[in-house]
């Protein structure tokens, strides 16, 4: 039962969620219906070609990521490999770095002729501007998704399932293939869907690596349309974004259906940890493999990024070529200061709003009666699975010049970016706060009511203080991705609203790739500090 104040708040929450998360996506559909002649564009050659390329990249990168990710997950959770905790932390590090930074570092490393790897080898042997390059970098940036989910699944699997199979006469190999692996299939499929969604939505990597060699995927195709062709181009962009929307919706639907159908309870309350398998003579070779993986996916790209940020001339590793030249250049530009101000300001505000709105959504989703709260939760988390490009277009359609509802235009203002960031990251907040609230027994609140506190006082003095520790983590989790957001910003920013993401992208694409490395290095350092801080927080609140 909700009282009057709660009903008012519930309505406000619904309105906000509707405007931020649902209205923009609806607008795309509403605007397109009267112009159905545009739909023939869906089957145009160029569009189909980029659709095909998007799928090819997605599947190839997924295949590669599974080939690498599955053994890695097993090795770092279930075996006595040396340096287990080191790998557990550092192989997952790329997860926290915006994906387009990997494109920038691999350009530094494997640019035809002048890339560091080509220079060092003394011959032109690899080029990153190829289909293979795109697949490799996509895998580099997103494979931690597979490793995080699968190692979590392996670690939480009830060890007695495997022990029972051993006692029944199964050899370790048989137990792995007949019990361990099949039990993890739902987890693996879920992680693969998420991975595929990420590659589908990815903009930075294909923009930086694909455009020079005319490899256009859906997101970069939309970008090109909407940047070049005025109103007509934006229209084309909408149509192409329908492909992205369709895939995103289809994949998330399949994902949640599978999740509901196959989520078998694999864990027990008993705190027994799976025993670690002894690798025997394979211990050192496995260690070497993981070390190579670490070098290739973490050390090499990040090292190249930092190294080039100090170079005057790209690719020349001589002592007199090093200096702080790029950093000087960077901080003399007005745009840099503006971008820092915008990105940090927006991330701070966006994080706060995500916490506040996320708290309200979670509160009503767990406490309001009927079916509407479930709907509210779904509405608030819908944009998360939508590619950023689609959301940005949807916002242009809803709030942009010449489009906006009732002539309202906030195009080119920070407010539009703020709405974009909040709509994308609200899901992160909601999905962390709901479980936190679920852990708080209702009787705690009921006891407050019985002791004479009003429902407002109960929320304010019992529920909120109990949830507060997890809100700190939620703030960082939702704000950190905003600091370096690129996909949406690149379509929504205007003069004066540059962000760190768009500035790095512009520097890389047009004017000064080495300065892009310098700015990217700063961003990596800021994000790493944020990440370790959030880990420390979550450890101390547990």
């Amino acid at each position, binding site marked *: 039962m909700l009282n009057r104040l709660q009903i008012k708040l519930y309505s406000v929450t619904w309105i906000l969620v509707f405007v931020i998360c649902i209205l923009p996506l609806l607008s795309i559909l509403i605007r397109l219906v009267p112009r159905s002649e545009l739909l023939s564009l869906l089957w145009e050659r160029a569009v189909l070609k980029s659709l095909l390329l998007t799928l090819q990249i997605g599947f190839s990168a997924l295949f590669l990521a599974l080939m690498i990710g599955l053994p890695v997950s097993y090795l770092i959770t279930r075996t006595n490999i040396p340096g287990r905790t080191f790998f557990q932390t550092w192989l997952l590090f790329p997860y926290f770095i915006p994906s387009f930074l990997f494109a920038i570092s691999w350009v530094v490393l494997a640019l035809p002729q002048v890339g560091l790897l080509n220079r060092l080898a003394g011959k032109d042997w690899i080029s990153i501007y190829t289909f293979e390059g795109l697949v490799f970098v996509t895998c580099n940036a997103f494979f931690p998704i597979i490793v995080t989910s699968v190692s979590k699944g392996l670690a939480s699997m009830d060890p007695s399932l495997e022990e029972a199979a051993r*006692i029944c*006469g199964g050899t370790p190999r048989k137990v792995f293939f007949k019990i361990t692996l099949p039990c993890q299939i739902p987890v693996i499929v879920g992680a693969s869907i998420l991975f595929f969604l990420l590659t589908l939505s990815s903009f930075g990597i294909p923009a930086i690596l694909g455009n020079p060699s005319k490899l256009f995927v859906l997101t970069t195709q939309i970008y090109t349309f909407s940047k070049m062709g005025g109103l007509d181009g934006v229209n084309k962009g909408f149509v192409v974004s329908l492909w992205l929307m369709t895939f995103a919706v289809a994949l998330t639907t399949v994902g949640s259906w599978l999740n509901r159908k196959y989520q078998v309870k694999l864990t027990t309350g008993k705190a027994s940890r799976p025993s670690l398998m002894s690798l025997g003579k394979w211990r050192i070779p496995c260690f070497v493999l993981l070390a190579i993986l670490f070098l290739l996916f973490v050390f090499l790209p990040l090292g190249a990024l930092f190294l080039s940020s100090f170079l005057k001339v790209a690719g020349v590793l001589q002592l007199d070529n090093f200096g702080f030249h790029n950093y000087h250049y960077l901080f003399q530009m007005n745009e840099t200061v503006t971008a820092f101000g915008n990105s940090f300001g927006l991330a701070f505000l966006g994080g706060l709003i995500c916490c506040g709105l996320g708290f309200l959504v979670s509160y009503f989703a767990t406490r309001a009666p009927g079916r509407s709260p479930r709907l509210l939760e779904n509405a608030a988390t819908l944009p998360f699975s939508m590619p950023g490009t689609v959301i940005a277009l949807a916002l242009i359609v809803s709030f942009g010049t010449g489009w906006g509802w009732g002539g309202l235009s906030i195009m080119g203002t920070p407010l539009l970016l703020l709405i974009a960031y909040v709509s994308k990251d609200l899901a992160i907040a909601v999905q962390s706060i709901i479980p936190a609230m679920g852990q708080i027994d209702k009787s705690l609140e009921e006891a407050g009511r019985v002791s004479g506190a009003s429902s407002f006082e109960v929320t304010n003095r019992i529920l909120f203080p109990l949830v507060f520790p997890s809100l700190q983590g939620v703030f960082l989790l939702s704000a950190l991705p905003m600091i370096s957001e690129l996909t949406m910003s690149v379509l929504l920013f205007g003069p004066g609203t540059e962000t760190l993401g768009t500035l790095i992208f512009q520097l890389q694409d047009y004017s000064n790739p080495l300065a892009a490395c310098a700015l990217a290095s700063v961003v990596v350092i800021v994000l790493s500090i944020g990440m370790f801080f959030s880990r420390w927080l979550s450890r101390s609140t547990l």
Partner: protein
Amino acid sequence: MNRVVLSNISKTFSETSVIPTLSLSIGENEFLSLLGPSGCGKTTIIRMIAGLENPTQGSIQIGEDCVFDSEKGISIPPEKRGLGMVFQSYALWPHMTVLENIAFPLKCQKVSPSQIKERCEKILAQVQLGGLENRKPNQLSGGQQQRVALARALVYQPKVLLLDEPLSNLDANLREEMCEQIGQIKKQSPISMIYVTHDQNEAVRLSDRIAILNKGKIEQIGTPSELREKPANEFVRNFLKI
């Protein structure tokens, strides 16, 4: 021959001694209960017999075979010890049907398909699960899951059956029923059973002998009536509430 002999076993987990030194022997076709408060090391003992943990010191013999000896460096893996085990959580494989769960150990032993079918049918009838072959474990009640776990542990006729608090997740009525069932099995098949529990009623009803454990030490071992009539010390007296 299905005697189990533990000689001078000790177990330390990262410098904490769980079992100081312990010797224990389970006779042929005997039903022995390990009874004690939680954390007394009883589960560790049957996990060592099963080969899921290795003792720090000592040796274990099952039948004629030495399956573990710290001095000789012998440690036979669990799949070669010829045991059956029922877990507290039942540990039914969620991706397999009831029939597949029960057939797994036979497939591991490379039994012929026709034999597998025959033996599965027989054991399913014995635990009264006929007709549920094609269900998945999550479509079964707690009691039914328990029976599947029992059937799976018995289908390959192991020499020794280990039961780790098999009834603790069942409600009182079902527990009664399962107790009966385990008693039946004891009568029908030539098998030694080691039964871990903290419930003295179960232990008294089923066991030939009971070992009362406290902090990894055997306080007293004897038939149920011996324990009741001559409790060796204060701990046994308190634990059995005599």
